[in-house]
């Protein structure tokens, strides 16, 4: 029987060699890279003089992009693990409100309020995951329920406790706190002063801040975004756990048969998504100095769109954190760029819909190439 086939296989004559170009196409980041180049080309051509590319302009769209990136990293890993979280936006509002209530209303030290909020929110993330695993229901439905539950509490709690829906004064209580600057501060201030003195970036020309740079440093929000992207990318592509994330999303049953702890992977990813939403919320609260009941509205969809533009498949098992980060960058640049270019802002939604559709079609095509299906 053993001579029925050749023991040493030769290349199958019916498999075409794949060209290097086509091989380069098979990358989850492709859509993100193409989109980023296109978007920057467009705005460099049509909005260069608008101030979009001076230090303030760059800082403006960088901060917005970084916000998207923070939630996109969490959503990306969770989507690759085969699940969704629609409660991200409500989680942002809820986390911000909890910090405000703990620190302003109850007078806790801000660091304690932040830590307790992180614990509380990741626990809710774990609960989301646990319900999904236990009931076998689609995460779409379970987290949709939490979208309403968390948003409801975010509106209800401040009304009962403070008789208003926005709680301010967080910056006053955060004065001198050691943990608050990790989320709300800026770093590399010296570098920016030097850049201003060297005439490389704009400085204030009059007033009390004369001579100081307009942009005084890199906000911690951006540092968090970069750190989370690096963490997510390394976790996904360079570790054993990353392989489990792909496996859990690719085919949970096959992964279980091979000894991958699928339930643990999925629950941890729900917790990580909640963690990212909380990072977003804390940064936002520290920037605005207040928490509002309507914060984070629709963020879950924006995160998912950024992830899909970045090449992840909605069905799980395939995607890239770097792609998701590029998706978030496209998102931020276009949203702010249209403003700089003086385009009616409602057109942003039209753009979103178009790019989402384009990305999904491209991804489906790429998947067909990868799996060889027709």
């Amino acid at each position, binding site marked *: *029987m053993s001579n029925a086939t050749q023991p040493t296989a030769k290349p199958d004559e019916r498999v075409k060699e794949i060209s290097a170009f086509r091989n380069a196409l098979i990358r989850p980041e492709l859509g993100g890279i193409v989109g980023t180049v296109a978007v920057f080309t467009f705005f460099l051509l049509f909005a260069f003089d608008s101030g979009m590319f001076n230090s303030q302009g760059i800082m403006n769209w960088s901060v917005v992009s970084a916000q998207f990136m923070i939630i996109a990293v969490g959503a990306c890993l969770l989507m690759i693990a085969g699940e969704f979280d629609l409660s991200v936006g409500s989680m942002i509002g809820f986390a911000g409100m909890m910090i405000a209530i703990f620190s302003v209303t109850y007078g806790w030290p801000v660091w304690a309020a932040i830590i307790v909020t992180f614990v509380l929110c990741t626990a809710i993330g774990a609960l989301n995951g646990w319900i999904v695993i236990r009931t076998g229901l689609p995460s779409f439905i379970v987290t949709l329920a939490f979208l309403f539950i968390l948003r409801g509490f975010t509106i209800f709690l401040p009304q009962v406790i403070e008789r208003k829906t926005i709680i301010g004064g967080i910056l006053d209580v955060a004065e001198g706190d050691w943990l608050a600057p990790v989320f709300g501060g800026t770093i590399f201030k010296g570098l920016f002063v030097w850049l201003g003195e060297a005439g490389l970036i704009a400085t204030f020309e009059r007033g009390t801040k004369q001579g100081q740079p307009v942009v005084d440093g890199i906000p911690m929000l951006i540092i968090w975004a970069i750190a989370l992207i690096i963490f997510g990318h390394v976790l996904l592509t360079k570790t054993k756990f990353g392989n489990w994330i792909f496996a859990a999303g690719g085919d949970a049953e096959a992964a279980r048969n091979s000894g991958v702890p699928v339930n643990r992977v999925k629950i941890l990813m729900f917790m990580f998504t909640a963690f990212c939403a909380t990072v977003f919320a804390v940064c936002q609260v520290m920037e605005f100095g207040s928490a509002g009941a309507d914060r984070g509205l629709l963020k879950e969809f924006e995160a998912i769109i950024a992830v899909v533009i970045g090449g992840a498949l909605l069905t799980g098992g395939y995607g890239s954190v770097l792609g998701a980060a590029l998706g978030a960058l496209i998102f931020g640049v276009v949203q702010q760029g249209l403003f700089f270019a003086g385009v009616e802002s409602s057109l942003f939604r039209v753009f979103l819909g178009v790019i989402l559709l384009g990305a999904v079609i491209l991804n489906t095509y790429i998947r067909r190439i990868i799996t060889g*299906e027709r």
Partner: protein
Amino acid sequence: MTGNSKFHHGDPKGAVQPIIEMKNIEKHFGRVIALAGVSFDVKPGECHCLLGDNGAGKSTFIKTMSGVHQPTAGEIFFEGKPMHFDDPRDAISAGIATVHQHLAMIPLMSVSRNFFMGNEPTRKVAGISFFDKKRADEVTMEEMRKMGINLRGPDQAVGTLSGGERQTVAIARAVHFGAKILILDEPTSALGVRQTSNVLATIDRVRKQGIGVVFISHNVRHALAVGDRFTVLNRGQTLGTAARGEISPEELQDLMAGGQELAQLEGSLGGTV
């Protein structure tokens, strides 16, 4: 029993100790008796075929062997010692690997990531353990070459492989991770002619390494091509075990179908079944 003298339970000349020996296994699900006393053993380096029609109890039996089900009655000896598997992990760590009909392969992932899924090699850098992709790729390419599959590269997705090649990857993986017994659940049922012969050649190669192969099938031709011994299951009972050369395909076919009905059918179809 059928009274056919070619059949006997076990091998009378049994000089080699079986890796696993299962005696009078019974399994009841509530009022349903799925297995009513099945005896089966596997020796190193042999391919023991388990034949039976749909509903004969093949799946229940191998699930008992791989630790998914616990037998209601009966004994299991592993390498001569009484053994009790609480769950599949026990069986896997003892060296019983199952390649399922529903393959444990993920089409979107690369061959090397699939190969090491759940058993990833790691390398420590600054105290943090990372997935050792280089090693995983090298081992995968080497193992695939041994099995006669030429990959474009370790990053090639499993989705681009044919059904037979996927079976082979799954088998190579089980062998690499130290399987002593390899249970193949209908590995050829969905394959074409050429792919089937590839898988059968793989079984032969694995057997020569001293691994005991349990080959489940309802296709007599495929079984006869590689099998050393044949055990037929019918309605939850072993009808007997025969060695290679002692039994003809027609006799096996008859036993699987319970004899009578198929004989009539065969008559009307001109002996083509």
